[in-house]
């Protein structure tokens, strides 16, 4: 089958689904929504699988959008290993999540229900456009549409003020990222006068194999200055979308959205867009070394930062949100040091276990009648056995315990960092290792608090029910994937498979250094320590036999609870000044100039009229005098004309 047509189909299926549901969905019976909503995503997944197995690739132009002189901008899609990889994640995990939400959102009324799936389908379309785009313009279009869809989804329960505020916050920060992206694209355009990947990367000296982009052979380029600038600007976009420091504050608030939204957007897809960006732009980042290092540093710092905050969260979704922030930090770390395929493998594995965790948490929330505070849980292991098991699988994967997939991906990253020549690698490894230990701790805390021990006295539901099959099965599938996924890339152990890196290294720069046996040792050690911390949390939270550290350091706890005061800082610096600017604008510009100007125009007209009315004396004799005077004047003028 024609790859060109199929590639477009992947995009059009979710779009069509969204369009159909938007136009007619609320009028049709619910079952239509239940079939179309997830159905188009599964169909897109099937097409993607087909393209994957037939190893299709190509740069396909569908039509030319802009033609201006010698500059042409086509609508083209780039199908290569990287984009197919991302499409698999998006459509595969996405389909599971959308199916799950058929059950989760069942309480919504008709129009609302259809609206949800419309937004989900449109989101998936936007994300696919982002990863499949073959030029910067459509990348940015997809980028912006993803931001828009996430605004809709986060603020889905718009009657809730907190949800609306959260959606707005997310959108504003995303727009900051959009600006960075656009400026970056400008810089590239000014430098290379082209906007398609093929042309831009080609100008950098990247070799092409047929239609796909092969790793860059060139390390130096003459325009490294502008490339650095472009790389940093693009990084702004990546940081905003992936909720890394310092544009991270929107992610925890985004948990106001329904749980499937959190699973899809904030675990598996949208937040990984930043990682995809760095990977796709690797020819630029391979040259722009400062920006490249910045990626790694931002990632490492964010990972640690987020993990520390996760320790004190009481809302189960917030723990997962900060955990996501942290794990994406790992991905940024990986691509930042040049271990691209390691980063993408972690992206894949994180998609599995984080979506799993979110959806399992959704089961719990559902069972507990929308209660999200973990302190009110306790002892769910007995009543929600399947969900507890699946949640545990997710947790162990997150901590990085063998044989779950999280171990393989996380340790691959840490191993690559450790053995990387140069100081940066060692530094970020240190940060990453500490983060792994803390991850073990907060994950354990989360699981023990919710599922173990005695039921809390404040439990809203005494006898919770397990979730219906439509919600359990997708979670189950992800649990299985989380368990066996590691088999794809056991490379970190020094033996076994390396399917992911083999696949992706065809299009991204392969890791230029080799690890040694010491990597394995360190990896295993980290795992053991993290596990110990996981178990240690039991002691603190369940049996209460050890005093919680929070009692000893109340000031630290408060700082963590306030998320290092970032929100307060941003509020004081940006929000307040914007408010003042707006007020001043109204007070000093709009009111006097615009409103006042209009009023003054009216008053002036009235005053002029009052002056003019002085002419109306009412005296007959004045009028006749004016008469005569007029005649005289006109006569003079005429005579002057004719005399000359």
């Amino acid at each position, binding site marked *: 089958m024609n790859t060109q047509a199929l590639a477009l189909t992947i995009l059009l299926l979710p779009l069509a689904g969204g369009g159909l549901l938007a136009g007619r969905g609320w009028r049709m019976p619910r079952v239509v929504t239940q079939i179309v909503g997830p159905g188009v995503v599964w169909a897109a997944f099937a097409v993607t699988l087909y393209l994957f197995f037939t190893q299709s690739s190509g740069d396909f132009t569908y039509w030319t959008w802009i033609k201006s002189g010698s500059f042409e901008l086509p609508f083209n899609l780039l199908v290569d290993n990287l984009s197919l990889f991302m499409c698999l994640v998006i459509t595969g995990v996405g389909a599971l999540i959308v199916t799950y939400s058929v059950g989760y959102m069942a309480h919504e009324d008709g129009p609302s229900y259809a609206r949800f799936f419309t937004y989900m389908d449109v989101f998936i379309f936007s994300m696919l456009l982002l990863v499949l785009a073959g030029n910067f313009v459509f990348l940015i279009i997809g980028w912006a549409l993803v931001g828009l869809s996430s605004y809709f989804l986060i603020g889905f329960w718009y009657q809730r003020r907190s949800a609306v505020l959260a959606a707005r916050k997310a959108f504003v920060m995303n727009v900051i990222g959009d600006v960075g992206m656009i400026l970056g694209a400008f810089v590239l355009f000014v430098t290379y006068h082209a906007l398609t990947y093929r042309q831009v990367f080609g100008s950098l000296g990247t070799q092409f194999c047929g239609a796909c982009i092969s790793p860059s052979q060139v390390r130096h380029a003459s325009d490294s200055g502008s490339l650095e600038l472009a790389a940093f600007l693009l990084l702004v976009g990546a940081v905003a979308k992936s909720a890394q420091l310092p544009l991270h504050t929107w992610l925890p608030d985004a948990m106001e959205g329904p749980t499937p939204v959190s699973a899809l957007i904030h675990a598996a897809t949208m937040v990984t867009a930043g990682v995809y960006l760095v990977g796709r732009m690797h020819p630029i980042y391979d040259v722009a070394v400062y920006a490249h290092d910045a990626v790694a540093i931002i990632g490492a710092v964010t990972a640690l930062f987020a993990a520390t905050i996760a320790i004190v969260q009481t809302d189960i979704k917030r723990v997962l949100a900060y955990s996501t922030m942290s794990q994406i930090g790992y991905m940024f770390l990986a691509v930042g040091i040049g271990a691209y395929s390691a980063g993408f493998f972690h992206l894949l594995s994180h998609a599995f276990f984080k979506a799993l965790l979110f959806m399992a948490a959704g089961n719990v929330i559902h069972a507990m009648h929308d209660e999200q505070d973990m302190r009110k849980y306790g002892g769910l292991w007995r009543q929600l056995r399947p969900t507890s098991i699946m949640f545990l699988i997710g947790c162990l994967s997150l901590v990085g315990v063998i044989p779950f997939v999280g171990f393989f991906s996380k340790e691959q990253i840490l191993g690559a960092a450790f053995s990387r020549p140069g100081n940066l690698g060692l530094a970020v490894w240190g940060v990453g290792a500490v983060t792994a230990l803390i991850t073990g701790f907060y994950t354990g805390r989360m699981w023990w608090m919710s599922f173990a021990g005695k039921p809390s006295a404040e439990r809203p539901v005494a006898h919770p029910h397990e979730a219906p099959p439509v919600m359990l099965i997708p979670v189950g599938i992800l649990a299985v994937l989380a368990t066996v996924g590691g088999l794809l890339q056991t490379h970190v152990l020094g033996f076994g498979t390396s399917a992911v890196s083999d696949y992706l290294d065809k299009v991204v720069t392969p890791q230029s250094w080799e690890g040694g046996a010491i990597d394995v040792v360190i990896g295993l050690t980290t795992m053991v320590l993290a596990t110990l911390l996981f178990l240690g949390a039991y002691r603190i939270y369940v049996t209460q036999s050890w005093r919680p550290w929070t009692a000893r350091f109340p000031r630290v706890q408060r700082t963590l609870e306030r998320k290092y005061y970032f929100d307060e800082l941003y509020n004081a610096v940006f929000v307040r000044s914007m408010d003042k600017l707006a007020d001043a604008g109204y007070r000093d510009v709009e009111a006097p100039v615009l409103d006042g100007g209009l009023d003054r125009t009216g008053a002036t007209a009235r005053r002029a009229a009052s002056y003019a009315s002085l002419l109306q004396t009412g*005296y007959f*004799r*004045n009028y006749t*005098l004016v008469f*005569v*005077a007029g*005649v*005289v004047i006109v*006569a*003079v003028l005429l*005579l002057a004309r004719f005399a000359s």
Partner: protein
Amino acid sequence: MAIIGGVGVISFRQPIRSVLSLVVVMLALSVLFLLLSAQFIFVVQIIVYAGAVMVLFLFVIALLGPARESGRGRLRFQAGLSGLFVLAFFGLVFAMMQGVHFRQPETTDLNVFGTVQSIAVGLFTNYLYPFELTSILLLVAAIGAVYLSRRDDPKN
């Protein structure tokens, strides 16, 4: 004589004297008309204008009572400005007259010029339309005058 009369018209304080001055002017003018071979106009001027219209004025004055204008009036600059513009006006007219070149007169029979026959010929042929309009105008004026001077009677 005409000029003296004209000055008189505007100068007398009592309206009746003013009217009589106007009669003087009209009579003087009628003679001038005759001098200008306008026999018919000469007669009409005396009969209609001096005779009927002025009599009308006299009647009205009698009706309203002899009034005198007193004082200066409220508009202080009126006289001065009027004088200014009027002088300017006169100056203009005078200047215009200086450069007047008459065109060649048409040849007409001076014996019939200005006679009643020639006027009648003009009125009933070329200028029939204005003639009829004027008669309607007179009719309307008459009706208007009657209406306007009606006393509002409750019984009416």
